[in-house]
C-alpha cells in the first residue's frame, strides 16, 4: 500500500511524511480499541480518517497529539513519529504546540475573543507581539473582519461556525506543523460547515491537516488522501483496524477491498 501513496505523492516531491505510524495499537485499561495501524500521513495535504463508529479513528487522532495522556488507563504501543522523532520521547508541551487540535464541538474559553487566542501565546511564552499574532491568526480563518470591532466581547457570543473558526485560529496561533480535527463540522449547520470546508481547502496548502469525519461528501470535498478504518469483531470484542488508505479518488472509486467499497457506497453486510 505504501507504493500507492508514493505514486500519488510524486507530484509534490520526495518529502518525508509528517507522521509515520508503525504497528500502533491503543487500549483503554486493557480493552483494545484499535490495533496494528501502520500509516504514513503526508505533509501539507489533508488526510481524512473515515470509518464506522467505534473503529478507533478518533482514538488514533487524539494519540497523535498525546491528548490521550489526559485519560488514565490508556496504553499506546507501537511507534508514532513526527518528522522522524518519536513523539512519546518528546516533551508533551512541545508536542501540543507543534500539533494543534480542533474538537468536535467548538470549545472556546469563556473569555473574550482576543483572550482566547492571546492566552495560549502568553502561557507558552510567545516572544513576538501578541496583538499582531492575534490579528494574523484571525485573518487566516477569515474571522478578522467579522470580529475586529468587538475583540473584547465574549467568545461565547459568536455563532457556532464562528466559534469553530476561532478555535482553528487559536490552534494556528501557536504556529503548528500539523492540525488535527475531530469531526470539526458535525455540530454546525450546513452553511457554516461549507465555510469551514472552504477554509480547510485553503489551509491545507500550508499545513498538514488530519480530519476525522463521518461525512463522506465532506471527505470527498476536502481531502487529498483517505484512510478507511473498519471494525472487527473478535468473539464479541470490537476493535478497529486500518483497512485501506490511499489518494481520495482511489479509495472512493477504485477501492482495493470489498469492505471499503461497501462502506463508501453505504452498503452493509
Amino acid at each position, binding site marked *: 500500500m505504501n507504493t500507492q501513496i508514493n505514486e500519488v505523492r510524486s507530484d509534490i516531491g520526495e518529502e518525508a511524511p509528517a507522521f509515520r505510524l508503525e504497528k500502533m495499537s491503543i487500549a483503554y485499561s486493557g480493552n483494545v480499541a484499535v490495533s496494528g495501524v501502520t500509516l504514513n500521513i503526508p505533509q501539507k495535504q489533508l488526510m481524512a480518517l473515515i470509518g464506522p463508529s467505534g473503529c478507533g479513528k478518533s482514538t488514533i487522532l487524539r494519540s497523535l*497529539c498525546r*491528548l490521550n495522556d*489526559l485519560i*488514565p488507563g490508556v496504553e499506546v504501543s507501537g511507534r508514532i513519529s513526527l518528522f522522524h522523532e518519536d513523539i512519546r520521547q518528546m*516533551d*508533551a*508541551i*512541545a508536542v*501540543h*504546540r*507543534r500539533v*494543534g*487540535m480542533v*474538537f468536535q*464541538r*467548538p*470549545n*472556546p*474559553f*469563556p*473569555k473574550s475573543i482576543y483572550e482566547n487566542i492571546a*492566552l*495560549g501565546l502568553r*502561557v*507558552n*511564552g*510567545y*516572544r*513576538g507581539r501578541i496583538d499582531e499574532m492575534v490579528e*494574523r491568526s484571525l*485573518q*487566516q480563518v*477569515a474571522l478578522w473582519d467579522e470580529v475586529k470591532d468587538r475583540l473584547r466581547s465574549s467568545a*461565547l*457570543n*459568536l*455563532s*457556532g*461556525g*464562528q*466559534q469553530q473558526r476561532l*478555535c482553528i485560529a*487559536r*490552534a494556528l496561533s*501557536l*504556529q*503548528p*506543523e500539523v492540525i488535527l480535527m475531530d469531526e470539526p463540522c458535525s455540530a454546525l*449547520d450546513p*452553511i*457554516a460547515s*461549507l*465555510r469551514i470546508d*472552504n*477554509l480547510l481547502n*485553503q*489551509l491545507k496548502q*500550508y*499545513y498538514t491537516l488530519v480530519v476525522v469525519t463521518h461525512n463522506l461528501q465532506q471527505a470527498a470535498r476536502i481531502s487529498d488522501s483517505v484512510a478507511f478504518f473498519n471494525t472487527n469483531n473478535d468473539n464479541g470484542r470490537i476493535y478497529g483496524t486500518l483497512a485501506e488508505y490511499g489518494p481520495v479518488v482511489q479509495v472512493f472509486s477504485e477501492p482495493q477491498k470489498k469492505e471499503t467499497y461497501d462502506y463508501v457506497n453505504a452498503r452493509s453486510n
Partner: protein
Amino acid sequence: MTTSQDRSSRGSSSGQSLVELTSRFFLGGLAFVPTLIVLALVGLMGYECFLFFNEVSFGDFLTATEWTPQFEENRNFGIQVLLVSTLIVSGIALLIAVPIGIVIGIYLAEYAPSRLRVVVKPVIESLTGIPTIVLGYFAYLTISPVLADRVLPQVRNLIGLFNQEFADSLSLAPFNGLCAGLVIGLISVPVVSSLVENGIRNIPDRLREGSAALGMTKFETLLHVLLPAALPAIVGAVILVTSRIFGETMIAAVAGGAETVLRFNPLESMSTMSAYILNASLATPSLDSIEFRSIFAVGAVLFLTTLVLNTAGNITEAIYRQQVIADQVAKVRVADNPYVALPDIRSLIVAGQQDGFRQSSAVRRSLDWVFQGISLISVFLVAAFLVWMLGDAFLKGYQQLSWAFLTSLPASARDSEQLGIAAPIVGSLWLMAVAFAFAVPVGVGAGMFLEEYLPRLRYGWARKVNAGIEILMANLAAVPSIVYGLLGVELFVRLLAGVTQGRTILSGGLTLAVVILPLLIIATRSALRDVPNSLRRAGYAVGMSSWQVIFFVTLPAAFPSIFSGIILALSTALGETSALVAIGAKAFVSFLPENVLQEFMALPVQIYFWATSPDPVTQKNGAATIVVLAGILLFLNVVALLLRSGRSKLSRL
C-alpha cells in the same frame, strides 16, 4: 403523544381520580409545613424582639459597649460585644477553612488519582458527621493546653527576638477565641472543599481538552481557564461557609468561653452570639424576663445574618449553574455566508516556527508538583486532626466503658464513680422516636410533592416559585440549630405548653424534627431526581395514573437513597446539642423516662455537662460517652454510605 390531560381522563373511574386529588392535596399540605416553620420563626422571633426593644432602645443596642444582662442596675445590651467576638472567631475559622478547603477541593477535582480520591473524600467529609459538642470538648481539653504549653512558649521565644516586652505579655486563657476559631475552621473545610470540587467538576471537559491542546500544563489550565470559570462557585462556597461558621454554637460555647466583654484579643475568652444564646438558655431565665428576650434579640441578629449570607451564597451558586449550562450553547445564531471570498493568506503563514516560544516546560510543569505537594499537606493536616481527635477521645474514655456504665442510672449527681448513661441513652431514643414520627412523613411527603408534582410547571411564574422553594429549603437547612432551639422554646415549650407540658421529651423531639425536616426534604428530592424518567414513562405507558407512578414506581426505586438520607438525618439529630440545651435538657435525671411528657437527658447534652466538669473522673465519663456516641454515629454513617453505593446500580438503568 401522551399529555397529562390524556392521563387523567384515561383514569376513567372517578374513585381513582379522587385518590389522585387527595394525594395531591395531602402532599401539597405537607409541602406547606416548611413555609409554616419560616412564618413561625419570623413571627415569634419578631414578637420577642418587639418586647425586647420596648425596654431597650435600639440605639443603645447598637452603640453600647457592654453586655451585662445579669446586672440589676445599669443593665447594658450592646450587641457590639457579641458581634466583635463572633467576627474574630469567624475570621480565624475562615482563614483556616477557605484556603485549605479550596486547595483540597481543587485537588480532588483535578489532580487526585481516583484510588486516592475514594479514600480522601470520605475521610475529609466525615468531619461534618462528628457532633460539634465532641469537637468543642476536644478544642477546650486537648488543643488549648497543647497551644498554651507547647506552642505558645515557642512563639514567645520567636517574638522575643524582636520585642521582649510584647512576647512576655502573651498568654493564652483556658477558654479562648483562637482555639474555637481553629477547630471551627477545620471542621468547615469539607463544606468549602465539596462545593469547590463540584463547581470545578461542572466545567465541561471540552475546555480542559482545549487548553491541553494549546500546550498548557494542568496548573496553567486551572489558573487561566478553570478557576476563572468556576469563580462564582468558589465565591458562593465562601459565603455559605461564612454563614455556617457564624452559626456554629457548641464549639464556640465550649472552647471560646462565656465572657461577654468587648475584646479584640483572640487569646482571651470571648463569647460569640450563638455561644451567648446557649449559655443564657442554660440559666433557664423566666420566660418573661429581659434576659430571655435578649436571647431572642441576639437570635434575630444571628438569624438575619445567616439568612442574608445563605441567600446570597445560594443565588450565586444557582447563577453559576445556569451559566455553565448557558455557556454550552452559542447565543447568537447568525448564518455564515459561505460565499465570502477567502483572503489570500500566504503572507500570514508562519507554520512550524518553534523558536518563537520560550522553552521552559520543566519550570512550567514544576508548578503542578508544588500544588500537589501543598494539597497533600492540607489533606494530611485535616486527616491528622481527625485521627488525633478520635484517638484522644478513645484513649481517655475507653477505660470507663463497661456494661454497667451503659445500663446504670446515675446513683446521685455527686458520686462521679458510679455514673451511668442509661438515662441519656433512653432519652435520646425517645427523642429520636418523636422527631422521626413527625419529620419523616412530613419530610418525605413534602419532598415528593416538590419533586414530582410541582416541577410539572417548569415555565412562567411556577418556575420562579420552584426556584424560590429551592432556595428556601437550602436556607432552612442552613439556619443555625440554636435558632431552631429558640423557636422550640417559644413555640413548643411556651405557646403549646398545654400539650407538651413544657420542657419535655415531646418539646425536644418536635424541635429536633424541625431541625432535620429540611435535610429530609432535600434528601428525598435528590433521591427522586436520580430516578430515570424512563421508569416513570414506563409506568404511564402501562396505564398508571400520577399517584400510582409515584407510589408504585418512583418511590420504591428511590427508597434506598431516601433511607440513606433518613439515616444521615438520624445521625444529625443524635449529635444535636445546642437546640436541646436551649429546650432545657436536664443535666441529671434519676429515672428512665416512660412517656413523652417527662423531663429528659440526651447523649450529646450529657457530654456537654460532663466534659466541662472540673472533676477528672466525670471528665473521663464524658470521654466514654463520646466514644459511645461516636461509635453509634460511625455505624450510622457507614450504613448510609453502603445504601448510597447501592444507588449507583439504579443509575445504570
